[in-house]
């Protein structure tokens, strides 16, 4: 009994020290809030999960792509316009050139990977800070997007968007499977030496270099992986909206960065996991939906209550700010847990010494 308890405590302690702890706490809080506001009977339905996932898979995936870069201490604020790039290619190639859509979609992913590679080249080999380089990329990609597609238009085959919003066996949303596959890919990556090198370069680039790692190549690969995931995200966005819009994704750049930080990934690199990205983006998604239900409740509870949507935005942005501030409290417990760890280690040392 005691040993089981001990183990549980140890598990919890080590979880408290894990990077994903911050995101987990925030996510849980807003999850409870959302369940409370929406009512458990409405929240725990396949269609609700399906809806949340279907609409937010692009954000979740883009956050994962951003996380990949952030582990290396880099960011890409042009990731949003890259989403639109996939979208316009996936729509325009079939529409204008008659390219079969599966081919067009594959080309969309390749195009984003090419953009990511260019950005990666500037960051990894030209050594331009990623914030600045990706800022310049926004101009370039945005220009390309509008040249390819001058205004919102086009459709995707109905079977595609129908499938996208389907649930397998009425239970498991397709989008869940997509996110799961990317996550499994991450789990595989984590077991490879490449991922160790990512953490090493993120932790200290010079030392990683001194250990025989080529940081530029590691970064370049990360950009390609992030580009690939962004590509998938862009296709999800295309399937979700079933059409093209050259201006669709821009906001995702900064949003995905915020999601990563809220999930507990360190902007300085070397600290975090993909779970952080999931929790962080989940937090943003649920804030959105919680505020929706909050105001709905207010409309019902207070007769005559009528405010402009400005208030909704103010409330959700304020909660995000609070969430950000809350990350320091989780960080504090994390620090405490670390200290405990050190003390234990010191004690362990004493025992050995005796």
């Amino acid at each position, binding site marked *: 009994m005691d040993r089981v308890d001990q183990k549980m405590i140890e598990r919890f302690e080590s979880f408290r020290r894990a990077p994903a702890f911050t995101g987990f706490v925030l996510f849980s809080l807003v999850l409870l809030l959302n369940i409370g506001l929406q009512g458990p009977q409405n929240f725990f339905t396949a269609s609700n999960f399906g809806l949340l996932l279907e609409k937010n898979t692009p954000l979740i995936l883009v956050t994962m792509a951003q996380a990949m870069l952030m582990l290396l201490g880099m960011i890409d604020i042009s990731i949003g316009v890259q989403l639109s790039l996939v979208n316009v290619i996936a729509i325009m190639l079939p529409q204008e050139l008659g390219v079969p859509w599966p081919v067009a979609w594959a080309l969309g992913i390749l195009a984003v990977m090419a953009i990511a590679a260019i950005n990666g080249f*500037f960051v990894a080999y030209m050594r331009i800070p990623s914030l600045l380089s990706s*800022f310049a990329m926004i101009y370039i990609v945005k220009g390309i997007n509008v040249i390819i597609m001058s205004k919102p238009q086009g459709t995707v085959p109905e079977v595609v968007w129908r499938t996208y919003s389907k649930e397998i066996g009425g239970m498991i949303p397709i989008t869940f499977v997509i996110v799961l596959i990317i996550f499994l890919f991450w789990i595989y990556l984590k077991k490879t030496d490449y991922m160790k090198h990512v953490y090493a370069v993120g932790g200290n680039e010079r030392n990683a270099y001194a250990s025989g790692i080529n940081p530029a190549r590691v970064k370049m690969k990360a950009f390609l992986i992030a580009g690939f995931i962004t590509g998938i995200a862009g296709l999800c966005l295309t399937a979700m909206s079933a059409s093209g819009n050259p201006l669709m994704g821009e906001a995702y750049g900064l949003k995905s960065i915020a999601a990563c930080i809220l999930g507990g990934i360190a902007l300085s690199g070397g600290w975090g996991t993909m779970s952080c990205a999931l929790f962080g983006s989940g937090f943003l998604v649920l804030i959105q939906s919680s505020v929706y239900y909050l105001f709905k409740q207010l409309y019902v509870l207070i007769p005559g209550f009528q405010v402009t949507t400005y208030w909704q935005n103010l409330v959700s942005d304020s909660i995000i700010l609070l969430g950000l501030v809350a990350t320091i409290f989780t960080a504090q417990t994390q620090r405490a847990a670390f200290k405990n760890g050190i003390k234990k280690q010191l004690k362990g040392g004493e025992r050995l010494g005796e």
Partner: protein
Amino acid sequence: MVNNNKLKQFVRDNQIGMALIISAALFTVNIAINPASLNANTFGSIIALTLLLSFASAGQTMIMITGGIDLSVGAVMSMAAIFTANTMAGQEGMMPLVLVQVIPMALIVGLINGVGVVKLKLPAMVITMCVSNVVTRLQYVYTQGLPTGTTSKFFTQTLQHRFFGFIPAMSLYAVVIFIAVLYLLNRSRFGQQLFLTGNNKNAAYLAGIRKDTVEILAYVIGSLLAGVAGIIGAGYMNFVICQSLDSYTMMSIVAVVVGGTLLIGGKGSYLGTAAGALLIIVLGNCLSVLNSSDSVRSIIMGGVLILLLALYNKEKPIRQ
């Protein structure tokens, strides 16, 4: 070989000079393409826009010297501009009342940013972005989204008038602001402490510098300067809507970086920033001469930015 090295050295050590040289080159190209653009108005508008951008970038320079970044510059400017237009409502003599609103607003925003970055140790980019969002939302709640009043005629005249047809009256404000910022950065203890703190926070702390205070002050003063820039921006445009000055966030960052301030902190100058601002405005002007679509202009802008960054803000290689 030797010449080549000297050139490299010059390019690296003279960011201000280089920014000016590139600006001049761009301007020459501009005139070569379109000789008609050599006129008094060109100078007038380039100077005015450069000054406005360098006001907006003053605080950003200070903050980036500490190694931080402020994404709330634009939001603070817009908020200040709204207060200005709203309060003046076309009447004269309302400036004190404007200041009574703008100063506390900027102080509070700066303080939240500073405390968030310094005491709570949140990444500057993220906390200032979130604060900026909230400030933007407040603009809408405050104005209900509608354009606000008009600035006073006199105030607008003091900004828009052009002496001899090409020296904007705004230069009078520039004299005050430049002297104040240059004094703060280069001739005061605060400035000295700011540079040291930006370069090595630990060492600054152990040398007896109150690094937290210094850094928070940078955010507060930065925010105040953004507030001032907002007031001036409002006067220049004479009426304001929500978010109208938001684009200055990114422009200020680019101006500061192109002006040679290091993203990692510890090195930078306000004159550099002003030169950077000039470079950006001239570049914009140059692009507007090209008879191409906005998309193509956007692509060229991005490409030129990358080139400039590769020139200025390259990180050191690991292998030396």
